[in-house]
Each structure stands twice: as structure tokens, then as C-alpha cells.
């Protein structure tokens, strides 16, 4: 599906991201992630993993991008619905604020890993 989005549509969030850098990470996190992972990234034991003090979040960037973009282990895929720049900002935010491991992910880094189809969010016909 992503391949069908015209380049002009993607270009806008990319430009916006370049200007705002980390600034939107927190509101984007609170908006999209906090219902499950909690506002402070503490998660809910047995259901939603903690993102704070997490070896996974502080670890391999490619794995991190993949799980957010494609979904996995019950986690929904956000790759089709959020702009790559937004995903990058969210990941930078949870690494820096919850794990003291700053990173400088950009939309380009996320795009580079978006090569396969994400999970289908709809019910099947």
C-alpha cells in the first residue's frame, strides 16, 4: 500500500520533521502510544512491555523501527498510518527520555526499512 502513496504526499511530513526535530516526539508519543505503554513508558506487566529502562528500546535501531512500522507480538503496525518522520520522532523520544540513549533517527532511516508489507489492520473479507 505504501508504494502507492505518491511521493508528494510523503514529502510534506518530511519537510516538517526537518524543522521540528525532537519537538513533537512527546505529544506524538502521548497521542499514539500512551494508552498501552502508559504516559511514563512504564507499560502494563503481562500485557504491554515497559519502554522505560528497556534494553530493547535502547538497543538495535533496526529492530525498533521494524516493530513500530510492521507490528509484531501483538503490537499493532503503525507504518501505514503514521508518517515516517513521526515514527522517527517517537522513537527518538522514547530512547532519549525513557532510556537516556539519544538517537537521531530521521524519516529516511524509517523509510529505508519499510520494504515489506505491514500487517493488515482490517478484518478480512
Amino acid at each position, binding site marked *: 500500500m505504501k508504494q502507492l502513496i505518491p511521493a508528494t504526499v510523503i514529502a510534506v511530513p518530511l519537510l516538517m520533521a526537518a524543522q521540528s526535530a525532537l519537538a513533537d516526539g512527546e505529544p506524538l508519543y502521548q497521542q499514539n502510544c500512551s494508552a498501552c505503554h502508559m504516559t511514563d513508558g512504564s507499560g502494563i506487566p503481562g500485557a*504491554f512491555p515497559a519502554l522505560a529502562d528497556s534494553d530493547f528500546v535502547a538497543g538495535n535501531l533496526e529492530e525498533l523501527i521494524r516493530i513500530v512500522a510492521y507490528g509484531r507480538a501483538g503490537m499493532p503496525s503503525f507504518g*501505514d498510518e503514521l508518517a515516517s518522520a513521526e515514527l522517527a520522532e517517537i522513537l527518538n523520544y522514547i530512547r532519549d527520555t525513557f532510556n537516556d540513549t539519544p538517537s537521531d533517527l530521521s524519516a529516511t532511516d524509517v523509510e529505508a526499512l519499510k520494504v515489506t508489507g505491514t500487517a493488515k489492520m482490517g478484518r478480512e*473479507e
Partner: protein
Amino acid sequence: MHQQEQTPLAGERDSTGAVTGLLTRRHFLQALGTVGGAGMLMSGLSAFNIGIASAQDRPPPLSGDANGKSVIILGAGLAGLVAAYELGRQGYDCKVLEARRYAGGRCQTARRGFVLPQLGQDDEVCDFDDGEYFNHGPWRIPYHHRSTLHYTQEFGIPLEIFVNHNEAAFAYRDGGGPLNGQPVRQKEIIADMRGHTAEILAKHVDQGALDVPLSAEEREKFLEFLVGEGHLERDSLDYLGTGGRGYASDPGAGLNPGEPSSPHTLAALLNSDLFGIVSSVSGYTQQKTMFQPIGGMDRIPKAFEERLGDAITFGARVTQLQHSDDGVVVDYLDGDSGETRQLAGDYCLCTIPLSVLRNIENDFSDEFRSAMDAVSYTPTCKLALQMKTRFWEVEDHVFGGHSFTHNSEVGNISYPSTGWQGRKGVLQGVYNFGANAAQFSALPRDQRIDKALGVGEKIHAGYRRDFENAFSTAWHLVPENLGGWASWSDEARQHSYPLLNEPQGRVLLAGEHLSYMTGWMSGAIESSWLQIEKLHAMAMAS
């Protein structure tokens, strides 16, 4: 879920969240053959029930006596209930462990006093008036979901029509187009888009300007089709409107012939982006006729429950699942005593959603566990609104169906297909998916309600005025589900899904997640049918 808002490309989601474009058996099997060779192809064939003609119509015929062999069934959702009922009839000793205090899994109905715990939120308590109810899980049975209809028929559960299409309902879109910012009856959009399209096409055909080879006879028949399809004037081939789009003033008695309405221009429809609600035929799962059980969807699990007697242990949360060559051992936390108990059996059918099962200690193979982790689950919210009048019927003459809001934060508005002309009613004011649902569930409850009312009041004057109370559900936050339904990527379907359909020793999984009808009751039922047939074959062979 709803009618299609627009016709997306194959593999995309329509406005309902349903994936369009059918994956054909042939494509699937070709893909399997390519990836896994003949062995994979064979198991794929069995997974697709080829050669088992009954698998979508009625349960598999199980021949041979089970001799009291025991089966532990995890989960009393539809898959678990079906297995317990069918295997029980075959002489198996079935014990069902269910975490909740009631059967049905996601197949629930909210009535006054119903409580739904959701993680990170206050318990949601239903405060509807007596007699009002809402199906916050599955709510519709397509006519071709024969496996679901098999049980409603077998148990004598009375059905009523679920109105999934109502051209008198509205389409609304914010924006700068001439028809934006106001509710427009769907029938106006449908009649005018098809009328204008037919007119353009008919005139081209008539003038021989269409670059399609048609014989003279074919041309006449095609014109006849276009005149009928678009309600065109027979001689001029103009589209001037049609009674079907509604009247400016309805025809009446005596000397009142009514006043015809005038069509919207093609430019107005295009510039208002309302044409997306028109499509030649709705998606397979969205077509007429649809049903719902009279009185609530939970009539289905209740009918199973009545027949299963004390086979179900409620309030039992599974904490560990172990299997060996000889049998299966399940540890669970007993809700009444708070103690951990253990249950041993010859076989296990596990219907716990993969999103939850992955957090339960088990001794599945690494490969199997990794396959379980390949699935994601769709976040989805529904919010029901009890209204003190049925203003949509009384003031707006909308009886059932959906109004398309073009607002993905909230989703479409759905009107009840029951209680016609009653005093009050419960609307479905929110049904959203994916990131929209994740965002919606992060809002405080009063803001969720306000958002729903804010969309609805643009369509119905009575919407905010007559609101009384709400019931809010976020399925990704329900601890026994952690998601609305399984979502498979093509990659995961190819590499992980087939393995999960195979036994792990004496354990088999089942549920909507192991079907190509994810999120539908028939997916759960047919997966259960398939897996109990495998379980029975294993039991007969041992």
C-alpha cells in the same frame, strides 16, 4: 463493518477496515508450493479444507469413539465453545478454562450493569436503561457465514435483519466543497454520480465516440443498460434526476403530485469529495442480507453455555501450559480461591488470542513461539451512545444503516437495527481502527464522548441534545484480548501462519487468528472445526 466509502485497490483497507481483494486459493497454494515445497503444499491443502466439503457449512463428521479421552480447552469464546460442544458430543471429556466470569470471548453484549475492565482505565460500567443493549464485539452475521448460521439454526436462536445499507442515511465531510459541511443523503450522491456517469457514457456511445468495438445490436443494449442504470431520459440521454434520490416535496394524496428534486452537479460532487461512497457492489462481507440475534449477540455463547453445563470453569486464568508425548498439563489461577490449580488432559485446544498467549508460560518450540510473535493485533474502539429519543427515526427518517462521517478519528455512525419506533435507542457513535483507535483510547473518557457528539451533531440536530450516557470499549485494552483481531502481514501469513495451524505435540491452537476471516465469528468457528478434526485424527491414531 460498514459499507465501502470508496473502492480501494486490492489488498488495501476500505472505510470499514476490511481488506479488499480476495486472496484466491490458487494464489495461496501457488505461494505455499513455492516456499515450502510439496510438504507445505499438503498441509496448506488441509488448512484450506480442500476435500472436506463440509467445513464451512457444518462441523466435520468425526467417526470413531473417543472413549472418554480428555481435552482441555482454553478459552470459552466461540472457538472454545464450538470445540467443547462438538467434541463432547463425540464422547470426549472436555474441560474448558475461561478467565472471564461468562462465556463468549469477544462475543459480548452490554446491558445495564455490565462491567468491562480495561487496562489503564476505570472499569467501564454500562448504564443503559433496562431493555437497551449494545453489541460492542461482533455485531453482524453476513448471509454467507454459514458456520455461524449453522449454530443459530441448530440452537433456535431467533434472528432479525441487520440493516447494513441505508441510502437514506447521510454522508458528511468537512471541507471547502459546495456540499461540504452539511449532511447529504447517500441516495442523492449515489443517484447523481451514477446518473452523470451514465449520461456521459451514453452520449459517447450514441455518437459513436467510444473506442470500444460494439456491434449495432450491442450498442443498443448497452445504451438501454445505461438509461436504466443512470435513470436517463430515453431520447435526450440527459440525467435530470430521479425519484430515487428523493423529492423536494413528497408526492401525496389528492392533487399533490410532489415536487421533484434537482440533482447535484457532477462538479459539486467531485469537488466535495463525496463520490467515494459509491461503488458498484459492496465488499463480500458487507452485502445484504445481514443478521443479528434478537436481544443481543451474546445469545449465541449463552446457547452453547446452556448445553455445556459445568464443563466450563469460569474465573480461571491460565498461567502455564506444558505438553509431553503423554498429555498436557495446564496451571491456572482459580478466581474464587485465588489458588493455583493444575489440570491434566490427553489433549489441549488453546483458543487464547496470540496477543495474550505469548505472555503465558509455555513449552512450545522456539520456532512455534517465534511464529506466534509474527502476528500483530488491531487496536479498535467502539463507543455506544444511549439517546433519550430516536431522533434519527422521528426527525430524520433514518432506520438502521450507517452514516459516513469521513472522520477516521471517530468512524461512522451506525443506527440500531432493533427497537424500531421505540422510545429510546443506542447508537454506535464510534468505530475506529489502528492508530486512530490507539489515539482515541488515550483520551479521557469525557473527551471521547465529546468527540463522538461533535461529529454526530453535524449530521443530526438531536445528537448532543438527546445524549444520555455512553459505553466505551477499547479492545486492545481488554486484558483477555489485547486487540480487536489478529492482523497478519503477507510475510507472516507466508512464513509463520502455516506452522501455527499444525499441532505442537498434543496442543492445537484455534480461533479467528487462524483463519482468513479474522475478526469474524465464522473465522473462530471454522478454525475450531478444522482443528478438532485434526485433534480427533490424532486421538484415533494413538
